[in-house]
C-alpha cells in the first residue's frame, strides 16, 4: 500500500468514529426544539469544557495559528492574550443568561436581548448579521478541512472532495442529533487535538533543532524581528501597536458573543457547570503554545509551503514520520476544523429560525425543528460554494465578522445589568456601532484606509456604539419597573 493510502485509511477510520459518536449521542435527546438547540439544558462539565474549547480550537487556531507564528511571529501572541479577558465576564454573565433561559424559555442570544427590548426588527437584524458573520467563518473551516486532506493525500483527494466528505459527515450528525452531537463529537475531537498539539509541538523543535530553547536561539540570531511583539503584518512589515492592541480588545469582547458559544449557556446542566467551564477555559489558551511552536519550527526550514496556512500539514509531511502517525496528526487538524464547523452550522440555522422567522410566524415545535434542520443544509451548501471558489479573501471577511459580532456585547450587558436601558437606545447603539464598523472596513477595503492608529474597525464601532446606547436610552422613556424586574 502506498504511503498516502495508509494516511487516507487512518483519516477514514477517524471520520467513521466521529460519525458514529455523532449519531449515537442524539438518541437520548428529546425531539423538541429545546432538545435540538439547547440539549435539554443537560450538558455536564466534560462536554461543556470541550464544546467551548473545541470551538476556540478552530481551523483558525490549528492552521492559522502556526501560519501566523511562521509568517508574522510574535503577532500570533495576541491569540493567547484575548482568551482570558474574554472569558472572565462570562463567569457572571453566563449563569445569569442561563437563569433567564430557564425562566423565559430562551434558546438564543437574540431572544434574550429582544425579551428585554421587545422589537421584531431588532431580532431580525441580529439574526441577519449573525448569519452574515457565520458564513465566512464556516467557509474558513471547510477550506481548512479541504486543505489538510488535499495536502496529505498528495492531491489524490482534491480540496473540493475533501471538504465535501468531511462536511458531509458533519451535516449528517448535526441533522440527526443536533447540539448533542456537537457536544459529544467535540469532546472526542478535543482530546484528540490536544494530544496532537502537544506531541507535535514538542517533537518538531526537538527533532529539528535539539530543543525549544535552541530553536528560539537560532530564530533570534537569524530572524530577531519575529520574536518581538507586535510582530509583523501579512506582508512582512512591522505591525502597529494600535492594530495589535485593538485586535486583543475586539476579540476579547467578541469571544463569548459568538452565538455558537454564548448559546451554550443555555445547554449547561447547572450554573456551577458553566462556572467551572469558565474557570478551566484558560487552559485552552496554554494549549495554543505548542501549536505556535509548530509554526516557529518552520521559520528556518529551507523549503516553504505554498501559503503560511499550509505550514502545519507541510511540517507534518516533511518530518519523516511513519504514515500512520501522519494520518493521526491530520485527523487532529480535521478535528479542529470539524468541531468548530458543526457548532457554527447548528447555531446559524437555529438563530435564523428562532430569531428571524419565529417572531413573524408562529410554528409548532416540530415544524421549527424541521425548519432548523433544513437550514443546516442550506447554510452548509452556501458555505461550501464559497469554500471551493477561489479568490474570496476569507481572513479579511472573518476579521470583519468579529467587528460585527462584538457589537452584540453592549446589548447583552445592558439587557442583564442596566435597568435604565431602553429599546430605542439599544437599537440606535446597535445600528450606529455596526454602521461605524462597516464604514471603516469598507474604507480600508476600497484602498483608502481611514482608521485612526490602525485600530480594528470593531473597536471603533464599540467606541460609537456604547455612548449612543447610553445617551439615547437616557433621552427616551424608561421601561416600566415590572418589565425590567423580570431580568434582574
Amino acid at each position, binding site marked *: 500500500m502506498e504511503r498516502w493510502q495508509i494516511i487516507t485509511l487512518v483519516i477514514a477510520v477517524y471520520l467513521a468514529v466521529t460519525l458514529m459518536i455523532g449519531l449515537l449521542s442524539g438518541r437520548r435527546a428529546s425531539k423538541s426544539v429545546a432538545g435540538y438547540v439547547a440539549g435539554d439544558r443537560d450538558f455536564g462539565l466534560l462536554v461543556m469544557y470541550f464544546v467551548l474549547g473545541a470551538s476556540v480550537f478552530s481551523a483558525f487556531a490549528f492552521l492559522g495559528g502556526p501560519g501566523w507564528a511562521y509568517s508574522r511571529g*510574535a503577532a500570533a501572541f495576541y491569540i493567547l492574550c484575548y482568551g482570558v479577558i474574554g472569558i472572565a465576564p462570562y463567569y457572571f454573565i453566563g449563569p445569569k443568561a442561563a437563569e433567564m433561559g430557564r425562566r423565559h424559555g430562551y434558546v438564543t442570544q437574540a431572544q434574550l436581548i429582544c425579551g428585554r427590548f421587545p422589537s421584531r426588527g431588532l431580532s431580525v437584524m441580529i439574526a441577519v448579521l449573525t448569519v452574515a458573520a457565520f458564513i465566512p467563518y464556516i467557509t474558513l473551516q471547510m477550506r481548512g478541512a479541504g486543505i489538510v486532506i488535499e495536502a496529505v493525500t498528495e492531491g489524490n483527494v482534491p480540496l473540493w472532495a475533501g471538504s465535501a466528505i468531511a462536511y458531509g459527515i458533519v451535516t449528517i450528525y448535526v441533522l440527526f442529533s443536533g447540539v448533542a452531537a456537537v457536544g459529544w463529537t467535540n469532546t472526542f475531537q478535543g482530546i484528540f487535538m490536544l494530544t496532537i498539539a502537544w506531541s507535535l509541538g514538542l517533537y518538531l523543535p526537538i527533532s529539528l533543532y535539539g530543543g525549544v530553547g535552541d530553536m528560539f536561539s537560532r530564530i*533570534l540570531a537569524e530572524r530577531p524581528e519575529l520574536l518581538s*511583539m507586535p510582530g509583523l503584518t501579512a506582508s512582512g512589515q512591522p505591525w502597529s*501597536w494600535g492594530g495589535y492592541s485593538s485586535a*486583543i480588545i475586539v476579540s476579547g469582547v467578541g469571544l463569548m458573543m459568538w452565538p455558537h458559544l454564548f448559546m451554550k449557556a443555555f445547554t449547561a446542566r447547572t450554573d456551577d457547570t458553566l462556572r467551572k467551564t469558565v474557570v478551566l477555559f484558560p487552559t485552552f489558551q496554554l494549549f495554543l503554545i505548542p501549536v505556535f511552536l509548530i509554526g516557529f519550527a518552520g521559520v528556518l526550514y529551507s523549503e516553504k509551503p505554498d501559503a503560511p496556512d499550509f505550514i502545519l500539514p507541510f511540517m507534518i509531511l516533511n518530518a519523516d514520520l511513519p504514515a500512520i502517525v501522519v494520518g493521526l496528526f491530520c485527523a487532529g487538524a480535521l478535528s479542529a476544523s470539524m468541531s468548530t464547523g458543526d457548532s457554527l452550522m447548528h447555531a446559524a440555522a437555529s438563530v435564523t429560525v428562532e430569531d428571524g422567522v419565529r417572531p413573524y410566524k408562529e410554528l409548532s415545535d416540530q415544524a421549527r425543528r424541521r425548519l432548523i434542520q433544513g437550514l443546516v443544509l442550506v447554510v452548509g451548501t452556501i458555505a461550501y460554494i464559497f469554500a471551493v471558489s477561489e479568490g474570496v479573501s476569507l481572513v479579511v471577511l472573518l476579521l470583519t465578522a468579529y467587528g460585527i459580532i462584538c457589537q452584540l456585547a453592549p446589548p447583552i450587558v445592558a439587557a442583564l445589568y442596566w435597568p435604565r436601558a431602553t429599546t430605542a437606545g439599544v437599537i440606535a447603539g446597535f445600528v450606529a456601532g455596526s454602521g461605524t464598523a462597516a464604514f471603516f472596513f469598507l474604507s480600508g477595503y476600497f484602498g483608502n484606509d481611514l482608521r485612526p492608529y490602525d485600530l480594528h474597525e470593531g473597536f471603533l464601532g464599540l467606541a460609537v456604539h456604547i455612548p449612543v446606547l447610553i445617551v439615547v436610552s437616557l433621552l427616551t422613556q424608561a421601561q416600566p419597573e415590572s418589565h425590567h424586574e423580570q431580568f434582574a
Partner: protein
Amino acid sequence: MSVKAVRWCVAVYMLIFLALTTWPGVTLINRIEPFVLGLPLNLFLIAVLILGGLALLTALFLSEKRERP
C-alpha cells in the same frame, strides 16, 4: 477572604492583564531574553499571566462555593 474581596481581585487582575498585554503596558514585558523554559521571555510572561488568571478564577469559584449553602 470574603467572596466580595475575591471578586474584586479577579476584576483588578483582569484589568492588569489587559494593561500588560496591550499598548503601552505591553512594552514592559516585551523582552526576548532571557529564555525561560526554552521560551522567549515575552511568551513565557504571557503564559504566566494566563496561569495567574486560571488560579484566580479557581479561587473565585471555590470561595463562592463555600458561601453557598
